């Protein structure tokens, strides 16, 4: 009963309230909490051990913004000095005029000339308040207004798989479908291809990754699947 240490194997499925480790040798990280001598899970997810810190990789849930996240959002409202941007999080994000562009924007300028209501933008989260309210920035060359394309929504917890190790999955998808692709960490993905079929192929592949996010060797599987879909179409 007094045995200390981790009680479960790494990567095992845990549920809220499950005891992960006993004793004071381990620290509770994201998705865990301490009850006296025990570290318990607070989420459904997979156990991840980083040194002496235990954390949970969530399997479900909404997007909670984090500082430094690169997200895709839609402009929903324009005030005299800022834009409200819906980023698929509990609260709508806000971007102040000074953070909106590399170039200088006059204080009395018509802001809809830069980003109008309904436009999709690629932006960075610069700060998150205690209540998960996020402030956004586009003051960098990599952030931009997105031209009309396909917006695909996936579960935010699946985004790391969609990016892959050092972006391997994104690279594969781009190469195999001939589309430009931007993945927002909030679960929105922008796809733009030369042909409509390419975009739909990319959408199909993204949904495939989302469905099979728990499998290993996914990048290879996706390559094969896209090949199959392309051949199947040519035969017809």
């Amino acid at each position, binding site marked *: 009963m007094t045995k200390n240490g981790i009680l479960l194997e790494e990567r095992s*499925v845990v*549920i*809220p*309230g*499950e005891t992960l480790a006993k004793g004071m040798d381990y620290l509770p990280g994201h*998705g865990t*909490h301490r*009850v006296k001598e025990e570290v*318990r899970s*607070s*989420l*459904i*997810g*997979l156990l991840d051990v980083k040194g002496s810190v235990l954390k949970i990789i*969530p*399997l*479900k*849930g*909404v997007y909670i913004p984090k500082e430094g996240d690169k997200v895709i959002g839609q402009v929903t409202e324009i005030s005299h000095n800022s834009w409200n941007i819906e980023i698929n999080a*509990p*609260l*709508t994000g806000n971007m102040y005029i000074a953070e909106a562009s590399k170039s200088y924007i006059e204080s009395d300028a018509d802001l809809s000339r830069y980003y109008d209501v309904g436009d999709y933008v690629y932006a960075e989260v610069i700060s998150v308040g*205690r*209540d*998960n309210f996020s402030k956004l920035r586009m003051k960098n060359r990599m952030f931009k207004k997105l031209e009309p394309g396909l917006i695909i929504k996936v*579960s935010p*917890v699946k985004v790391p798989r969609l990016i892959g190790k050092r972006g391997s999955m994104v690279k594969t998808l781009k190469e195999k479908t001939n589309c430009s692709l931007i993945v927002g960490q909030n679960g929105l993905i922008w796809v733009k291809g030369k042909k409509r079929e390419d975009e739909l192929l990319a959408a199909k592949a993204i949904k495939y990754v989302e*469905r099979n*996010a*728990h499998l290993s060797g996914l990048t290879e599987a996706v390559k094969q699947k896209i090949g199959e879909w392309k051949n199947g179409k040519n035969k017809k």
Partner: protein
Amino acid sequence: MAKTKNKRPDGRKPSEMRKIEMEAGVIPNAVGSARFKIGDTEAIVGVYGPRELHPRKIRLADQGLLQCNYDLMSFSVSDRKRPGPSRRDRELSLVSSNALSNLVFLDKYPTQVIDVFIQIPQADAGTRCAGICAASLALADAGIPMKGLAGSISAGAIGDTVVLDLTKEEEDWADGATDIPLTYSPKTGFITHLQLDGEISKKNLFKAIDMGVKAAEKIVDMQEKTLKEKYKGGAVE
């Protein structure tokens, strides 16, 4: 209707629950959802959020709000129930919110709301308990941080016999039946909800609570098994 000793109208033992079925992830559009069936009582729950809370004036600055919405559907009972929230529905929404708020880390979502919609498509007593059981499962399924799951069951007494999980027939017993719905969370060790409808002796009350707590533990075990089964290998939908 004659009641033989220690036998109930449906042939159960005094400390026996009705047959339980449960399932997580039944509503694709919800963040988390669950279905819970005990005997002929069924509850379907959808969890949405955390999200922005309106109207603004009911926002809490230091923590989130867990808002339950209990709805007994009009066709769920034999006499058609008038649709829309009744006084009873509003009371049970509040009771369910209070029973579950204690289990969720609400301080992570200040000013926001977690909406829990409890629908009862079929009722045969114990609807609030079925609703809370389903809601606990759905909250976990929604990936909302919790201290643990909760089981809810009604214990009670028919005449002088302490029984578990009363049906509608038993609740309406001519000699007078007592109904004690309670919610218990084994991980925190708290009884987060306890109601009493009827009369009962002190001795029998403690016996009934004890019986309810044990049954709630069993329900939580089943919930945990259901979730583990669903997320086995990290698979979702």
